[in-house]
């Protein structure tokens, strides 16, 4: 899994390990979705991103719609969509986990696309039941569309599902930088901090995302 021996460029081993971690979690039971459902969500998002036919999957229709729209054009998601999906049975906690799954898989896939590499096959799901873990702190819906443990802020976006919040932070720490490293304007890997922010800004501009 994620054997980059034939990659066009040497791939950082810490990054490869972070991707393996994403795939292992993807295949495993999550907080509200089973492993097979998480892999199905990823398959829908991946197909939508490529404007391909959505594969037949065993998911509720609102989850398929949400995974497809988030996968293909996240800026098109509206409050009305989220409310409609909720009224049709996609509760906020399952929706938050779905966002986590789609977004993390998109990170891994985009990395491969950016280096002109084939996508990693989706993992074989593991058996088991979702944990139904509740956040340690109370959550509420304020100005955003989903519950969070405090006023909307990027570091707590997925806090209604702590495992997804932790997974996001873990992956981002390797693909971009940790929150601690973000305090350093001169942080450097293969790119300078300014070059990293240039890439980030252009990506967000294409996606029409304010952030």
């Amino acid at each position, binding site marked *: 899994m994620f054997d980059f021996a034939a990659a066009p460029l040497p791939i950082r081993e810490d990054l490869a390990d972070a991707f393996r971690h994403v795939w292992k979690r993807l295949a495993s039971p999550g907080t509200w979705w089973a492993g097979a459902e998480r892999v199905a969500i990823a398959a829908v998002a991946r197909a939508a991103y490529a404007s391909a036919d959505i594969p037949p999957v065993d998911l509720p229709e609102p989850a398929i719609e949400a995974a497809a729209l988030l996968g293909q054009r996240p800026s098109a998601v509206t409050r009305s969509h989220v409310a409609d999906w909720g009224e049709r049975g996609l509760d906020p906690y399952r929706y938050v986990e779905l966002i986590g799954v789609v977004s993390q898989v998109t990170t891994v896939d*985009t990395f491969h696309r950016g280096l002109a590499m084939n996508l990693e096959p989706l993992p074989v799901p593991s058996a088991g039941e979702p944990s139904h873990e509740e956040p340690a702190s109370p959550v509420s819906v304020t100005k955003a569309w989903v519950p969070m443990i405090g006023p909307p802020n990027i570091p707590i976006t997925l806090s209604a599902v702590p495992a997804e919040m932790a997974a996001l932070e873990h992956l981002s720490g390797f693909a971009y930088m940790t929150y601690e490293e973000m305090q350093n304007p001169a942080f450097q890997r293969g790119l300078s901090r300014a070059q990293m922010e240039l*890439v980030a800004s252009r990506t967000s501009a*294409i996606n029409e995302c304010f952030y």
Partner: protein
Amino acid sequence: MLSWSCKETNQKVDLLPIASGTGDPLLPGGEALIGMVNATLAGSGVADARDKVVAALGGEAAVDAAAVIGNFEMMNRIADGVGMPVGAGSRKRMADVIELLGLDQYPHA
């Protein structure tokens, strides 16, 4: 974050190529990096764009660029998926950038 990091490290940057997708943002390898983002998200000319970054900045830079593009594909999906509001403080602090780049035209602005 781009403006801040450039200011703190005494680097000049032109933000307009971020919105237009073309031109020289004045950072080393900047034009090639913007080209790699464009190609990656368009799914066209990716190997050529990657190789231009390698030629300008090296292979490690191209790998990190791909990772950062991936990271922001993730963050954009999260921010848009949860309906992240843009606070009044951010709007005030970023007013010049919002106007320059036309960020108020974005669906979630």
